[in-house]
């Protein structure tokens, strides 16, 4: 084993050193971190496609013309495996090996918190998601959250429910037992109580559950008017919707916590009738329509609701570079808060979050209340969070 152990170790070192790709002149590395393994792989794929579409748009117009130079952005995405270590490794590789100055993603809380521990001291700008309030804070000056969390949109949507369904009183909230669900549940409890609802039933189910009939049977004993699917992932929300109707629940079913009407409709089929949810993505918005067509042309399959969010993040980043007329991180970072009113596919851009997080790095946007009427998604209202 003697001589060969050294041989193998040397080989591994050589392979590692050779593998970083030679950098093209005037190349602009856009880093991305997403979950590309296990159950949440569609998040990573949505990130990859969203950012790539924004890059395609820019390159179609001959690249980014900034400070007298033309940059052709190119995407490097790594898999965070939805774990802290995965997020930290991906962030370190982007920062140290690929020398990326701008990163989009991750979506899950664990990889985001771990990646921040690397990007913040390295002064790398990160446009991320993740529902944990710890992600934004006065010390985290180098990251912005580019998707609204229930903290922002729950009060607005509960208010809408109160106005349109005044007779409803008793509410049931069902959440997955993971980092998302555990953050969202207390927010919804506070929101519902503030508007005079009586939260009669709450349940945290294990993330891999597919059959909710026993859980819904338990709920049915509480005479519930409104069932809130809260932050259930697309498949689970669709199943809860279908099985609630199958168990004989006649009341209102709403989801305040995760935009995914298209996928729920695909899973629940005819039983999705009257299901109320929301989306940031309003197809009537001209920019949104252009994006929707570009996605359909290039990828065709059903679009994850995270895809427009990540596309939007890349567009905001490129706009900030244009306005700063530089690709220096601090210049771009300074430009972002001043972009209020910039037309995005989710409507005019707004930042907020000072009171709750101590820093205005939380993206706000209008939300579109949607309802399923005989198999089609109908837009009922547009509600604003700010």
């Amino acid at each position, binding site marked *: 084993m003697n001589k060969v152990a050294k041989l193998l170790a040397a080989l591994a070192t050589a392979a590692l050193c050779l593998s970083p790709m030679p950098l093209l002149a005037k190349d602009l590395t856009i880093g991305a971190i997403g979950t590309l393994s*296990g*159950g949440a792989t*569609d998040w990573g794929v949505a990130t990859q496609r969203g950012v790539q579409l924004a890059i395609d748009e820019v390159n179609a117009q001959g690249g980014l013309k900034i400070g007298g130079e033309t940059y052709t952005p190119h995407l490097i995405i790594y898999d965070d495996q939805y774990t802290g270590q995965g997020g930290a490794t991906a962030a370190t590789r982007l920062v140290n090996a690929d020398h990326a100055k701008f990163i989009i993603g991750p979506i899950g809380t664990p990889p985001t918190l771990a990646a921040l521990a690397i990007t913040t001291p390295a002064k790398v700008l990160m446009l991320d998601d993740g529902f944990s309030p710890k992600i934004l804070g006065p010390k985290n000056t180098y990251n912005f959250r580019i998707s609204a969390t229930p903290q922002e949109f729950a009060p607005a949507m509960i208010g809408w429910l109160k106005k349109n369904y005044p007779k409803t009183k008793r509410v049931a909230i069902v959440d997955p037992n993971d980092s998302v669900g555990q953050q969202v549940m207390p927010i919804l409890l506070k929101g519902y109580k503030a508007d005079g609802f009586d939260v009669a039933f709450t349940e945290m189910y294990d993330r891999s559950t*597919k059959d909710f009939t*026993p859980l819904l049977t338990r709920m049915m004993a509480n005479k519930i008017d409104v069932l809130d699917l809260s932050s259930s992932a697309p*498949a689970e929300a669709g199943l809860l919707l279908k099985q609630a109707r*199958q168990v004989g629940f006649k009341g209102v079913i709403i989801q305040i916590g995760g935009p995914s009407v298209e996928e729920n409709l695909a899973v629940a089929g005819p039983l999705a009738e009257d299901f109320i949810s929301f989306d940031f993505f309003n197809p009537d918005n001209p920019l949104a329509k252009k994006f929707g067509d570009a996605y359909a042309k290039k990828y065709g399959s059903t679009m994850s609701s995270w895809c427009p969010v990540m596309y939007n993040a890349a567009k905001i980043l490129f706009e900030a570079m244009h306005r700063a007329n530089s690709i220096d991180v601090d210049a771009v970072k300074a430009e972002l808060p001043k972009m209020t009113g910039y037309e995005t596919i989710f409507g005019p851009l707004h930042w907020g979050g000072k009171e709750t997080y101590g820093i205005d790095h939380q993206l706000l946007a209008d939300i579109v209340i949607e309802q399923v009427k005989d198999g089609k998604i109908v837009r009922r209202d547009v509600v604003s969070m700010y």
Partner: protein
Amino acid sequence: MLSLPVLAQVVVNGVNLGAIYILMALGFTMIFGIMRIVNFAHGAFAMLGGFALYFLLMDAHVPFLLALPLGALLVGAGSLLAERFVLRHLYHNELQGMIATLGLSMVMIYLAAIVFGVSQRSVPAVYSEIFFFGPLVVPMDRLVVLGIAAVTLLLFFLFMRYTKPGLAMRVAAQDLEVAEAQGINAAAHYQAAFFIASSLAALAGGLIGQLYALSPFMGATPLMKSFIVVILGGLGSIPGAALGGLLLGMAESSLTTFFGASTAQLASFGIVMLVLVLRPQGLFGHAERDS
């Protein structure tokens, strides 16, 4: 909470859950019983069954009651490739067999993710009526699942009990040397057993894809449930898989309805660990022969 209708509903829910678990566990315990391999790819074959049903229904427009068995047999035939190139050389070598099937499941899952895409979808409901027997609610698609599971279990039982290949497989499960000494061509029977087990998994996968949702990663939960069912029933025991499946279904249904979801999950793990320690061979299994 303990009124009669709720109890009845709990039993119905339990039986519905149990039906799926039995279909998944049958193939799994059969492969372990006969070939001493913990088949981690069993969930992946279920996933392929779901997609086979999806494409047979949607693209080939084959009626449901024909598409389901056809899809299952297609996946079974496909599984023979895996048996030929991966498992054939690893029988009775538990560790290598387990890790190889883990690798196989990764290849199948992530190839499916590349080919079919990762978004969740559902096999369109063929039966969406809902029957109300007084307070009791029984959706039609659950009844269909129950019926299919019962028929499959009966056919499987008859095959193993009254046909020559069935008998040969049971002998091979007891003692390979004795089986071969009596002229049983073990290799052929292993192939047949693997075909049946994968077809059963694909059948369950089709039903899961229709009842719940379809994605390349749907195989993980059914595989985990098969583990639990087979431990309860006894590794390698066919009646054990049947009873174990029903037991788990009823336990999950009653625990979740009366105590809530997270306690149910912790309790089911706790029960299984207890069974493993107190009675490793489960209800019907035979004690592990000393090495």
